[in-house]
């Protein structure tokens, strides 16, 4: 483009009277062609404008909450299960009171037997692994057959009643 043309465009530019097209011409001229020495200042100006436009926003866009409804369903499902289990445990306690003496006795005996077994299990517990623990406690359990018999007795009681 002719130098005179550019100079008149620049004048217009500084008055704020150029159109976007004319400004694009100026940008093109100052970023691609060899610039006359006395217009060198404009080169950095327009090069800056062009280069600054490359700046972009790096963070992810915030519209990622489309699955919030799904989580809401999970939450309500969890609440329902918790309520249900709480209800069940509470009512089962009430049932225990309704049982006859014999039944309660049998229940308690069973609990005792379970306790004993679990004690033995604990004795056999080694930090090695779960399988080891079970096998060792079974061995010990064999030595203490009495406890197993006791367990049998109390389970039998339950079955006899029912």
């Amino acid at each position, binding site marked *: 483009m002719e130098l005179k043309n550019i100079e008149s465009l620049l004048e217009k530019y*500084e008055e704020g009277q150029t159109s976007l097209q004319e*400004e694009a011409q100026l940008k093109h001229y100052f970023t691609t062609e060899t610039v006359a020495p006395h217009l060198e200042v404009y080169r950095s100006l327009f090069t800056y404008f062009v280069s600054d436009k490359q700046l972009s926003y790096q963070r992810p866009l915030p519209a990622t909450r489309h699955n919030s409804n799904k989580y809401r369903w999970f939450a309500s499902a969890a609440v329902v299960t918790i309520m249900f289990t709480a209800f069940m445990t509470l009512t089962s306690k009430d049932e225990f009171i309704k049982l006859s003496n014999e039944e309660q006795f049998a229940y308690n005996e069973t609990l005792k037997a379970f306790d004993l077994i679990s004690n033995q299990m604990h004795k056999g517990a080694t930090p090695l692994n779960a399988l080891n623990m079970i096998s060792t406690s079974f061995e010990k359990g064999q030595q203490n057959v009495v406890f197993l018999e006791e367990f049998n007795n109390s389970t039998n009681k339950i079955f006899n009643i029912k």
Partner: protein
Amino acid sequence: MNETEYLKIVSPFKDKIFRVAKRLLVSTEEAEDATQEVLLKLWNHRQKFKDYNSPEAFAMTMTKNWCFDRIKSKQAQNLKIVHNNYEDHSQSLQKSIEVNDSLRWVEKHMEALPAKQKLILQLRDIEHYEFNEIAKVLDMTEATIRVSLSRARKTIREKLTKTHNYGIKKH
């Protein structure tokens, strides 16, 4: 409006929001925060999008207001934020070598302009907005915008000439 529609509308001008915010707030971090805030607001107002004939102008107005509020509250707190851009230096070092020193001068001179002039110059010379669009965003007449744009362009050119000739010509 669902997410894909929202993204389709927002994606073309999210970088513009960021650049405008950065121009006004200088710090990259703050500009990113501002952009995030504006995008979130747009998402929350997505149902109203259809009422605006130009979501972009709406977004720009939002950005402008948000940034001006930020600047005001900073001044009110009498807290001078020095524009430190805590960037990844390995990258910016490379860039600073590549980028001509004179470009940084342009940036500095632009930074020194009054906020309104800065914004107008940004919207016009970097984002290529038409005068009527800028008028809508800034709620000013086109004539006033032309005047302050001309003032901003002249100021920068004068300052650049000075730094350019520094040590070469006698003032």
